[in-house]
């Protein structure tokens, strides 16, 4: 990580209230219950850094990504973008800042307006943020960006509607419409999970280029450790709203310390029939409804190493070697 942090997240919490029926609301003495989607998460992203957030569905990784951009309001905690406190910004100021903080969505089919042409989709980004004087400048910017994201020649894609594009091309448009704003920080939420294997790497390369060429920092949210390995400098593993381990990529993959990280890595299938499948060091499933309050380690019901101690405290994230932190009392 570079010394200059572009994003600092401190004790971020995002809770969603559990809906109750009207009668219960009035008569129940129990306090309101919450699903703790993001629960006390802290990390930094350096300038030009690519941080991977990896976890299973429901672990809160997408909610966290959205909270950072304030698409979801945080319940508590602070988010600093270059020393600006994002959580306290007013609507208008936030809107101005959005240009610098952008998001790439998972579904390239659903996230593009089907009734706008490729050029118009990009033009909309330019107009919202008032980046150009006049149509000629807009056109030049769009043309440039289309080339930058590999939609060449731009004339060929200019007037096309999203339905006429393949999945990979659509995702390139998705990248293009944020690149045209020249953001500093991009949250990419599962950008390749809905694409075919043969084009996935093209998008990964494109994202890596954003960093090389434009110095854009990236938060790459995924459930796929194998692709995260190819692009991320560091990886954070999330489980039930918490970061359980964060470390430089190869460090994490070679010597995972948290039992959950170990299980997650062991579960990644290897594209080689000669490799034997190993037993998984994990029990059961992710709980369907995450519990309201945690007084124990949240992984202990599934952990093969759990004992009494694990049931009594929620372990904090502790740095065990430079840049490598883990939240497990057994890992030392």
């Amino acid at each position, binding site marked *: 990580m570079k010394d200059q942090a572009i994003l600092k997240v401190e004790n971020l919490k995002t809770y969603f209230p559990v809906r109750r029926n009207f009668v219960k609301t009035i008569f129940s003495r129990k306090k309101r219950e919450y699903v703790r989607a993001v629960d006390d998460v802290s990390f930094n992203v350096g300038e030009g850094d690519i941080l991977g957030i990896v976890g299973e569905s429901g672990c809160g990784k997408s909610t966290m990504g959205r909270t950072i951009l304030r698409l979801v309001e945080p319940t508590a905690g602070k988010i600093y973008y270059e020393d600006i406190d994002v959580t306290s910004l007013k609507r208008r100021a936030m809107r101005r800042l959005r240009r610098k903080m952008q998001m790439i969505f998972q579904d390239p089919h659903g996230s593009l307006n089907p009734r706008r042409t490729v050029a118009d989709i990009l033009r909309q980004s330019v107009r919202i943020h008032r980046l150009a004087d006049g149509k000629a400048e807009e056109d030049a910017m769009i043309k440039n960006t289309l080339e930058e994201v590999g939609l060449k020649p731009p004339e060929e894609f200019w007037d096309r509607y999203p339905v006429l594009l393949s999945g990979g091309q659509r995702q390139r448009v998705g990248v293009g419409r944020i690149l045209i704003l020249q953001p500093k920080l991009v949250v990419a939420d599962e950008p390749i999970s809905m694409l075919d294997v043969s084009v996935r790497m*093209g998008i990964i*390369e494109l994202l890596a280029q954003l960093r090389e060429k434009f110095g854009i920092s990236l938060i790459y949210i995924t459930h796929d450790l194998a692709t995260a390995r190819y692009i991320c400098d560091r990886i954070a593993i999330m489980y039930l709203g918490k970061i359980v381990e964060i470390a430089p990529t190869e460090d994490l993959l070679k010597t995972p310390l948290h039992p959950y990280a170990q*299980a997650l890595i062991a579960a990644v*299938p290897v*594209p080689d029939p000669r490799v034997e499948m190993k037993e*998984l060091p994990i029990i059961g*499933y992710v709980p369907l409804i995450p519990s309201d309050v945690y007084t124990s380690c949240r992984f202990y019901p599934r952990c093969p190493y759990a004992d009494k101690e694990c049931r009594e405290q929620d372990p904090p994230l502790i740095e065990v070697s430079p840049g490598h932190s883990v939240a497990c009392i057994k890992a030392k």
Partner: protein
Amino acid sequence: MALLEVENLKIYYFTGAGAVKAVDDISFSVDKDETLGLIGESGCGKTTAVFAIMRFAAPPGRIVGGKIIFEGRDILTMSEEEVRLLRGQGVAMVFQAAQNALNPVMTVGDQITEVINQHEKVTKEEAWERARKQLELVGIGGDRAKGYPHEFSGGMKQRVGIAIATACNPRLLILDEPVTGLDVIVQRQLLNLVNDLREKLRLPIILITHDLSVVAETCSKVAVMYAGKIVEQADAVSLYKNPAHPYSKLLIEAYPSIKGEKGKLISIPGAPPGLLNPPVGCYFWPRCPSAMDICQEAEPPVQTKDGRLVACHLYR
């Protein structure tokens, strides 16, 4: 003679714009104690091809040619009643996104007994007893039989799908994208189950997927499909070790791995051709790094090379 032999199968979709050759002259076979992986990108015709084995072909799709010989009989010439009995008892299928294929207003036990009652004359108690056994077989307690699908997680619903499909002891099981959309840990648990079932029930399996690693972990034989055709067919180990067709080679190189050295990954330029107006010659030549002149003129015939089948002009 193999358990299942598909010969020169052709399935076209007749649209207003012309015939889309979704499956174009493919042949493969599955023997007892074999697991065949059918692999390819979306839209390459892999699901359409196996649907034909159950004789599902919805208009405007039509099976226009070929034979599907299952245990010595051609499925395509069977009567409707014979096909009805075949489905479930002879060939059973777990559909793509089985998570959503379950009936939300029926208990899973009812959904399993429904299949049993369709095929066999058993008492209600017997049927339920078997439903519970099925659930235990797939690693869900029999006491969950009275539960509704929404009470199960994605991986468990997929297991219920397998329990339903194997309820009448089919002699061939088809799994269509069984782990797509599941988390890695759940995915691994499910693949373990598939491997267990194959050994326990001695059940031949056809597994459709776009994920190379899933095939690597479960299949003994692999067929690679591209644009409605099978371009290479080989046993799993030799295909991964030494792919012959340029498409299989690129597909394997494009797949990231978490183990070993981090090699450079490539992506295959371009996209698969539209099957309304496919290119002349080999369908893969516009994306192929080793394309020659002949590739743009003539369609490559399927040839045998070192015990595998490959359709490429490189091996003439």
